[in-house]
C-alpha cells in the first residue's frame, strides 16, 4: 500500500512539475532532462541491475538515438514522431547487432568490451564531419509541432515536458511488463546464478542478448528525446564519461530496484547542475561523489531506506 501511495505521489509531482519547479527557482527543461536520463538509466538497468551484465558503454546508444533523431529532422523530414522512431530504431538496431559480441562475456570483460565498442561510435560521429558536424556537434534542426489532423500540439518548453512525461510513462509501462513476465524473471535468475540457469537448459546467452538489445533500444529512445530537448546533440552524448555517469546514477539510486535509477538521476543531475554553477572544479567533486558512493553507500539511496527494495 505504501508503495502504491509513494508511486502515486511521484506521478502527481511529475504532472505538476511545470508549476512547482519554476517556483523553487529552477526551470522546466531541467525536469525534462531528469526524466530523459531516467528513461536512459532505467533502460540500462535492465541489463545492468536485473540481468547482471556490466554495460559500461551505454552512452553509445543514447548518442546514436540522439544523432538519429537530429539527422532525421535535418536531412529527412520535419517530423518529430518520425525523428523519435528512426532514432530509437538506429540505436536499438546497433545494440541488437552488437549483442552477440558481448553476450558471452562476463564481469569485467563484459564491461571492457562494451566501453570499447562505445568509442567506435564516438569517433564515427567526431570524424564524419560533413554529416554529423564533428566535434562541434549536430545543430541546425529543431523539434517540430505535432499534427493530429487539424489539431496541432505545439512543442513549447512545457508541452515538450509533457511529451517526455508521456514517453517516460510508456517506457516505464513497457519495462515493468517485461520485468514481470517470464522473460524478466529469467533475467533476474541469470544475475543470481548464471551457471544454475545454464544447467536448466536455458540458453543464457540469448537472454543476455535480449536484455542488451532492450536496454539499448530504450536508452536510444531517451537519446532521441534529449536531442529534441536541446535541438542539438554532440559527441559528448556518446562519450564514455556519460556512460560512467549513467552507471553511477543507477548505483546512487539503487540498482536492484525498479525506480532506483530515477532517484539517482534526480540527485546526480541536480548536484551536477549546482556544482557546475558554483565551482570550476566540479569534475573533482563529481569524482569524489563516485568514490564516496562506492565506499560508503554501495546499495544506493533506496538500499539505505528500504531493504526490501533489494528484492524487487
Amino acid at each position: 500500500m505504501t508503495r502504491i501511495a509513494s508511486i502515486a505521489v511521484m506521478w502527481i509531482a511529475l504532472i505538476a512539475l511545470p508549476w512547482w519547479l519554476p517556483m523553487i527557482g529552477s526551470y522546466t527543461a531541467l525536469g525534462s532532462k531528469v526524466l530523459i536520463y531516467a528513461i536512459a538509466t532505467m533502460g540500462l538497468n535492465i541489463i545492468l541491475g536485473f540481468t547482471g551484465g556490466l554495460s559500461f558503454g551505454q552512452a553509445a546508444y543514447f548518442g546514436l538515438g540522439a544523432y538519429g533523431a537530429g539527422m532525421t529532422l535535418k536531412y529527412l523530414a520535419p517530423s518529430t514522431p518520425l525523428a523519435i522512431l528512426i532514432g530509437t530504431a538506429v540505436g536499438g538496431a546497433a545494440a541488437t547487432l552488437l549483442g552477440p559480441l558481448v553476450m558471452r562475456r562476463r564481469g569485467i570483460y563484459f564491461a571492457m568490451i562494451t566501453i570499447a565498442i562505445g568509442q567506435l561510435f564516438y569517433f564515427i560521429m567526431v570524424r564524419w564531419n560533413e554529416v554529423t558536424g564533428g566535434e562541434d556537434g549536430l545543430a541546425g534542426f529543431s523539434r517540430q509541432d505535432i499534427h493530429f489532423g487539424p489539431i496541432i500540439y505545439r512543442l513549447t518548453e512545457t508541452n515538450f515536458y509533457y511529451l517526455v512525461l508521456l514517453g517516460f510513462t510508456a517506457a516505464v509501462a513497457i519495462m515493468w511488463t517485461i520485468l514481470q513476465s517470464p522473460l524478466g524473471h529469467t533475467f533476474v535468475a541469470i544475475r543470481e546464478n548464471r551457471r544454475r540457469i545454464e544447467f536448466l537448459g536455458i540458453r543464457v546467452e540469448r537472454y543476455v542478448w535480449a536484455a542488451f538489445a532492450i536496454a539499448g533500444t530504450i536508452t536510444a529512445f531517451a537519446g532521441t528525446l534529449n536531442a529534441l530537448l536541446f535541438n542539438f546533440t554532440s559527441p559528448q552524448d556518446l562519450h564514455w564519461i556519460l556512460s560512467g555517469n549513467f552507471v553511477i546514477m543507477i548505483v546512487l539510486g539503487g540498482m536492484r530496484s525498479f525506480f532506483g535509477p530515477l532517484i539517482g538521476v534526480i540527485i546526480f543531475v541536480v548536484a551536477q547542475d549546482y556544482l557546475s554553477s558554483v565551482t570550476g572544479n566540479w569534475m573533482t567533486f563529481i569524482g569524489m561523489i563516485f568514490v564516496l558512493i562506492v565506499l560508503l553507500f554501495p546499495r544506493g539511496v533506496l538500499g539505505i531506506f528500504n531493504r526490501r527494495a533489494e528484492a524487487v
Partner: protein
Amino acid sequence: MQLLLFNAFNGLIQGVFYALMALGLALILSLNSVINMAHGGFLVIGAYLAYTLSPYLGFWGALIVGPILAAGIGLVVERVLIRPIYKRTDPIYSLLLTFGLALIIEDLTRTIWGAQGLPLEVPDIINSPVSEEYFFVTGYRLFVMGITAAAAIGLYLLLRYTLLGIRIRAGTRDLETTSALGVNIYKLRALNFGFGCLFAGLAGVLAAGVLGLTPPMGNSLIMPSFVAIIIGGVGSLFGAVLGGLIIGLAAGIATTYYPAASEAVIYLMMLIVLVVRPRGLFGEEGLFE
C-alpha cells in the same frame, strides 16, 4: 612511400605508448581483478611530476623518479581506496571508484599545472634525427622503443624467474590457493598495483617527450589500451604489448590513406577480432566467459 613510412612510424610510436599502458592495465586486471579506469591518471601524474622535477634532476633523473612517484601514489591509492573493496565480488564498484579517480586526477592536474599544453625538454644528444631522409626517426623515438622493450623484458624476467613474479603468476591463476600456501596476497596485490602504475608513469614521461603534456592525455590513451588488451587476449601480457603495437601501426597506416578513420580503425579491428577469434590473439579460452 615516404609518407606511408612516416605515418607508420608515428603510429608505431603511439603503439608503444598503448603497449606500455596496456601492460600495466593487464597486470592489474589479472591479479587485482580491477579495470583501472584511473590508469590514465597515473600516466598523467608520472608525466607532470617528471616535468616539474626535470629542472632539478635533469631529464634522466626525471625519467626515473617520475614513474617511481606514480607507483608510490598508486600504492597509497591501492591501500586506502581499492583494498577495502576487494571483497565485493561485483566488479562495478572498482570500475566506478577508479572512474571517479580518473575524473579527479584530470581535473586537479588542470588546476595545478593549467589546461595549456606544456613541453618536456628532451636532451639534444638523443633528440636529433638519425638520417636526413628519414627525418621523423629521431634518436628520442628509438630511445623510447628501446626503453619500452627493456621494461617489457624486465617485467618478463621478473615474472618468470623471481619468487615475487612466480607468486604474482600463481595469484593470477588461483588467488585462494596462493593465499592458503602462506603468501600475503594483500601485499602481493599492492605490489602488483604499484608495478602497473610504474608502467603507466613510464609511459607518461616517455609520451610527454613526444606529444607534450596536457591534462587529458592519459584519459585519451586509456581506451586504445583496452582495445590492445582485447585484441591481444585477456590474460596475456605478451598479447597486450603486441595488441598495442598492432593498433598503433594500423592507426598510422590508416592516417595515410583515410585520415578520418584513423581512430575508428582500431575499434573496427577489435570488432573483427571479437567475431573471428573471441578470446583474442593470445588469450586463454574460457577466461571471463
